[in-house]
C-alpha cells in the first residue's frame, strides 16, 4: 500500500482499539494497524458512525486508545502523561475540525497565535509567525477580524493557519469541508494538496469520494475496522 515505505513511519498503529465505556460499552475502533509516513496524504473514508473521528482523535492525541499501541516518531503515545500529550498536540499535530473550533471573540490573528502561546513563544515572534501562517493560506487581509465575523470558508482557512503555525509533523483534518459550500471546499482541498506538495503529512477524514481523491492514498473504515476497498464496496452496496 505505502509508497514511501523506505523511511521510518511517522505514525505507527498496532491493534489500536477504543471502547467507549458506559451502560452499554460501544466499540469505536477495533484492531487498527496503520503506518503513516512523512509526506503522506491519507484519506480515511467511511460512513457516518464508522469510527473516523475516533481514529482521528487518537491520532491527534486528544484521546487515548483502550488497547493496542500508537507511536509518533517512535514515541509510544499510549504511555504518555496528560502533560506530555498536551505537548505532543502542541508541537507535532495541527488539527482542523469540521466545525472550525475558533475562539469567537478572538481575532483571526489571535486564534492563529494560540498554539504559539502555549508553546511559550514571545509576543512579537508569535504575531509574526501567525501572520505568516495566515498569509500562506491567503487570508492575511482578515487578520484583525473577529473569527465569528468570518464566513465558513474563511474560518476554515484560519483554522488551517492555526494548525500550521507551530510547524507540526502532522496535519489532521476531520471532515474539513463538511460545513463548507462546494467552492470553498475545493479551495480548501487545493490548499491541503499544496501543503502536501510542500512536504506536509496530512490525514483527512471524509465520506465524500470526490474529496478523498485529492489524497495520495485512501483507507476505508467500517464499524471501527479498516477494510479493503473490495470489502468496502461490497458492504456499502
Amino acid at each position, binding site marked *: 500500500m505505502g509508497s514511501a515505505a523506505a523511511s521510518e513511519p511517522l505514525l505507527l498503529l498496532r491493534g489500536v482499539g477504543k471502547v467507549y465505556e458506559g451502560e452499554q460499552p460501544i466499540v469505536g475502533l477495533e484492531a487498527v494497524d496503520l503506518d503513516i509516513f512523512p509526506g503522506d496524504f491519507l484519506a480515511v473514508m467511511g460512513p457516518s458512525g464508522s469510527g473516523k473521528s475516533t481514529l482521528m482523535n487518537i491520532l491527534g492525541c486528544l484521546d487515548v486508545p483502550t488497547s493496542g499501541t500508537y507511536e509518533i516518531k517512535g514515541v509510544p503515545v499510549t504511555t504518555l502523561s496528560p*502533560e506530555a500529550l498536551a505537548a505532543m498536540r*502542541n508541537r507535532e499535530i495541527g488539527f482542523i475540525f469540521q466545525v472550525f473550533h475558533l*475562539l469567537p471573540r478572538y481575532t483571526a490573528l489571535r486564534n492563529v497565535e494560540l498554539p504559539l502561546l*502555549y508553546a*511559550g513563544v514571545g509576543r512579537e515572534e508569535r504575531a509574526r509567525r501567525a501572520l505568516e501562517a495566515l498569509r500562506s493560506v491567503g487570508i492575511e487581509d482578515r487578520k484583525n477580524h473577529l473569527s465569528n465575523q468570518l464566513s465558513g470558508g474563511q474560518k476554515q482557512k484560519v483554522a488551517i493557519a*492555526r494548525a500550521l503555525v507551530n510547524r507540526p509533523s502532522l496535519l489532521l483534518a476531520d471532515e474539513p469541508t463538511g460545513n463548507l459550500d462546494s467552492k470553498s471546499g475545493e479551495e480548501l482541498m487545493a490548499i491541503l494538496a499544496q501543503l502536501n506538495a510542500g512536504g506536509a503529512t496530512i490525514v483527512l477524514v471524509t465520506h465524500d469520494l470526490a474529496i478523498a481523491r485529492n489524497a495520495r492514498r485512501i483507507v476505508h473504515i467500517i464499524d471501527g475496522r479498516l477494510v479493503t476497498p473490495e470489502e468496502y464496496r461490497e458492504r456499502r452496496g
Partner: protein
Amino acid sequence: MNPVEFFGVAIDALRTNRLRSALTMLGVIIGVAAVILLVSLGQGTKNYVEEQFAGLGANILIVTPGKIETRGGPPVIGATRHKLTLDDARILEKKGYLFGGVAPVVFGTAEVRSGSRSRNVSTLGVTPEFSPVRNIHVEVGNFVTDSDVDAKRRVCILGRTVKRELFGNANALGQVVKISGARFRVMGIMERKGVSLGFDIDDIVFIPVRTAMDIFDTDALFEILISVRNKNDIDSGKELARSLLFKNHNRHEDFTITNQAAMLSSLFTILDTLTYVLGGIAAISLLVGGIGIMNIMLVTVKERTNEIGIRKAVGARNRDILLQFLLESTTLSAAGGVCGALAGTLGAGAIRLLVPKIPVEVPPWAVVLAFTFSVFVGIFFGVYPARKAAALHPIEALRYE
C-alpha cells in the same frame, strides 16, 4: 505561557462580561469596604478612649475603701468595713519609698455660688500632691498648699467650666465664692483638661482636704492616689501599699488597690478584641463575596467548555487552564479589593466629615489586610471551578455546545 500573558487572557475574559464581572466584584467591594469601615470604627473607639485616658498617668495606684473578691472590678460600696483615713495616707507617704507622691482625696458634691450665679459641682478635697500625681495643674494662681491643708483654710481652685459659669470672662482670682454656704477665696484656676469618659474634668472645684472633711462632715477618704516613681515598680509598689495598709488596718484587708495601667491595658485588650470581632463579622460578607465569585466562575467554566476544549486541542496543559481560570477569579477579587479599599477609606473619611462624633480611624494594616484577604478569597473560591475546567476531557469539551 508566562503569567503576564495569562493575565491578559483573564482581563479579556472579564471584559467580555462587564456587567457580570462588576456585579461579582460588588460582593467583594462591599466585603472589603465593610472590613475597613468596621475595623476603623473599632480602632477609632480605642484611640478615643486612649485619648481620654492620656495624661491620667499610667503608673498610678488607686486605693479605695472596701474589699472585693474578684480582681479588677470596682469596689462594692456595701463591703466597706473600715474607712480610709488621712492616717493611712500619712503612713503610705512616710514609708512608701517607691512612691513619687501620695494624694488622699475627699469627694463630695456642693453648691458653689458667686453672687446670683450658682452651680452644683463635684468638689474634691485634696493635698498639694494631687496636682503632680494626677498631672493636672493650675493655669493661674496657686494650687492647694500644705499650709492651706493644715490650717483648714477656706480657699478653692476652680476648674475651667466652673470659672466660666460663675464668672464669665471676668477675673475670678481673689474673688469670694460660697461653697455649701461657706465663704471661700479663689486661689487658682485650673488649666483646661476637657472631657474624659463623659466626665467634665473642668467642672470641678478643689479645696484643701481637711477643709473638705469639715464641709462634708466626714473623716473618710474617697480614695488615695499613689504615683509609683518607677514604672517597673508598679507591682512591688502595689504590694508595698498593701502591706502598709494591712498593718495599719489591724491586719484586715478592707481596701482595694487597683493598678490603673493594668485596668487600662485590659480595657484596651477588650477594645482590640472588639475591633477584631467587628472586622471578623465584616470578613464574613467578604466570604459571601467569595462564594459569589465561585458561583460565577462555575457558570463561566460551563459556558466556556468549548473554549477550554479548543485550548487543550492546540496544546494547553491542564495547569495552563487551571492558571487561566484561577487568574480570572483572582483578578476579579483583587480588583474588587482595590475598589473596596478605596470605598472603605473614602467612606471612613466621609463619616468623619459628616458625623464627627463617630470616631473612625483607618489603620493602614486594615486596608492591607482586607485587600490581601480579598485576593486569597479569589484564589480560594477560584480553585474549585479552575480545577473543574482543567480536568475537562479535551474531546468532551470540544463536543460541548
